[in-house]
């Protein structure tokens, strides 16, 4: 039972893959709409990427190269664990380089390097329903999507502005897909939202516990919700990465001591390493780290 070799390629049985593949095709045909699917119990806990893992397992082929990131990094424990799972059960090649991957499974980030045609980005999604925190009932939110009745969402965002002077949503920032469905982009920071718009890669979303799959075909219009007088603004950092010097990328804050010491470094570790490698090759000095 513990022998991974006794499981099917990429763990899932063929019947389960077919069921998920049918759901994926419908998801691509109805961008932003959440297709219910009979999510299986996986050998990892619900909430830890079971939806993403089932989607990845269903699309993966023997000649794919897989990259897995969590918080932008290939080395976070859950990313390591999921990558290991596919190495063991599918025996496929893995990489940490965004450009080399054909399939990228992610939690909470979109890589900084632009994605290309032919690549598939698989998101792990905890709560797929963007209206869930405004209306807990699935029967009701399904009706609202059917009627394209998104008044609740606009009221919520507007109340934010009235109370805080800002739309107080910084991650899982709702988007409208091709002018029709409001979609949850998964808990990626709103910094990443613009990358979804007209992205050449295919974006697939899997929510295992909530049993939903949805998708963004390549070159799909994805608009972050906003108001004319309060346009959408991605999070901006007023500095660059302390390690590679890159600017305009998403940063992790690292606490270096208990006297207020902080440094900011790339959240995308592959991007950071590539920039530093380029700098070394090009004979540029590495950025000095402020102490």
């Amino acid at each position, binding site marked *: 039972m513990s022998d991974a070799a006794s499981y099917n390629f990429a763990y899932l049985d063929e019947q389960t893959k077919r069921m998920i593949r049918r759901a994926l095709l419908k998801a691509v045909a109805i961008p932003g709409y959440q297709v219910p699917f009979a999510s299986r119990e996986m050998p990892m*806990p619900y909430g830890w990427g079971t939806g993403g893992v089932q989607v990845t397992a269903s699309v993966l082929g023997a000649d794919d190269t897989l990259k897995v990131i969590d918080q932008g990094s290939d080395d976070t424990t859950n990313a390591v664990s999921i990558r290991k799972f596919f190495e063991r059960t599918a025996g496929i090649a893995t990489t940490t380089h965004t450009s080399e991957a054909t399939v990228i499974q992610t939690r909470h980030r979109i890589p900084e390097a632009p994605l290309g045609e032919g690549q598939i980005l698989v998101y792990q999604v905890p709560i797929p329903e963007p209206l869930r925190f405004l209306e807990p009932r699935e029967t009701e939110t399904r009706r609202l999507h059917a009627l394209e009745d998104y008044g609740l969402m606009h009221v919520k965002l507007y109340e934010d502005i009235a109370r*805080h002077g800002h739309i107080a949503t910084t991650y899982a920032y709702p988007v409208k897909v091709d002018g029709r469905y409001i979609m949850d982009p998964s808990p990626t920071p709103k910094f990443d939202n613009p990358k979804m718009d007209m992205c050449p890669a295919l974006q697939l979303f899997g929510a295992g516990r909530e049993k939903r799959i949805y998708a963004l075909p390549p070159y799909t219009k994805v608009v972050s919700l906003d108001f004319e007088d309060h346009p959408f603004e991605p999070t901006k950092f007023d500095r660059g990465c302390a390690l590679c010097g890159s600017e305009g990328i998403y940063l992790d804050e690292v606490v270096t001591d208990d006297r207020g010491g902080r440094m900011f470094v790339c959240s995308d570790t592959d991007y950071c390493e590539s920039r530093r490698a380029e700098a070394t090759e090009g004979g540029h000095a590495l950025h000095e780290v402020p102490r």
Partner: protein
Amino acid sequence: MYVAVKGGEAAIAAAHTLLAKERRGDPAVPELTTDQIREQLALAVDRVMSEGSLYDRDLAPLAIKQARGDLIEAIFLVRAYRSTLPRFGYAQPIDTSAMSIRRRISATFKDLPGGQVLGPTFDYTHRLLDDSLNEVAAEPTAPARRPIADDANAPHVADLLGEQGLIEPNPQATDDAPVADLTRDPLAFPAERDLRLQSLARGDEGLLLALGYSTQRGYGRTHPFAGEIRMGSVEVHLAPEELGFEVPLGTIVVTECEMVNQFKGSAESPPQFTRGYGLTFGHSERKSMSMALVDRALRTRELGEEVVAPAQDEEFVLSHVDNVQATGFVEHLKLPHYVDFQAELQLVRQMRREWEEANRKEAAE
């Protein structure tokens, strides 16, 4: 210079080695065998089989041992294994009226055909810690068994009421109507009773207990009587299409609870009692009784009553009753969220700057 943390893989491997060591405990104490768990922690095994949705008296003890006695973890192990098993067919419905009874009680009639059979129960034990269990005790002797008349003579209490039309009839199964299966189709609402019962049978004993209890305290009161609780073994049959007849697969132990609940009649139907139903693998009275209470509460819509309490709200109950889902999502908060947290930090810092600026301006004016 700052170096980003690497070596997640080595850390994970080391953590798992530590876990294995912790699981074993003090090596001077003999290792627990799965046989011991099956025989001596039988009620834990029964719970893992029920909520794991897999009747297997060898796998459940193994899961309990591997999970270090964490029953929800053990249930999860069994579920994950179960989802990889191919399906060969669907068994015929079990017939609990043909049960070989080990325990059977009714709270509604003092005596009844087949009699009250107390069987192995904690009921009426005085909850005093038993020092003697610290020692390897002498083998307890079984009491002389009162001969139970032919099992077929223990009709369901609800059927006795049914003969007089005092309780709503049991819904009749239609042979070719498909039975819902939430492990093959995603849960959708409204959920019919077959799907609800499956969900409750797999559901968390603790949540069902609390919800059942809440109905007794007035949050969706249903005036329950424990019409009957029976525990014993039943045969499971398969009827392969190509054979054209039933073949027995073996016997399983189940606990069944039929609650009798009050219900006022309507213009169309005379006053009669209504039913709540609970069934679990193995011996689990608390779970099957709680399940029966919640089943009846969830029939609110079907019986034309108003949904006012949590236990009557099928979307609320069915969406939260699965402890494998619940524990996964609660515990996923342990995973790194620093990307999202950074986004929130940036906004809070910005809002504080704006607030301070506004205050300064105000003070200057």
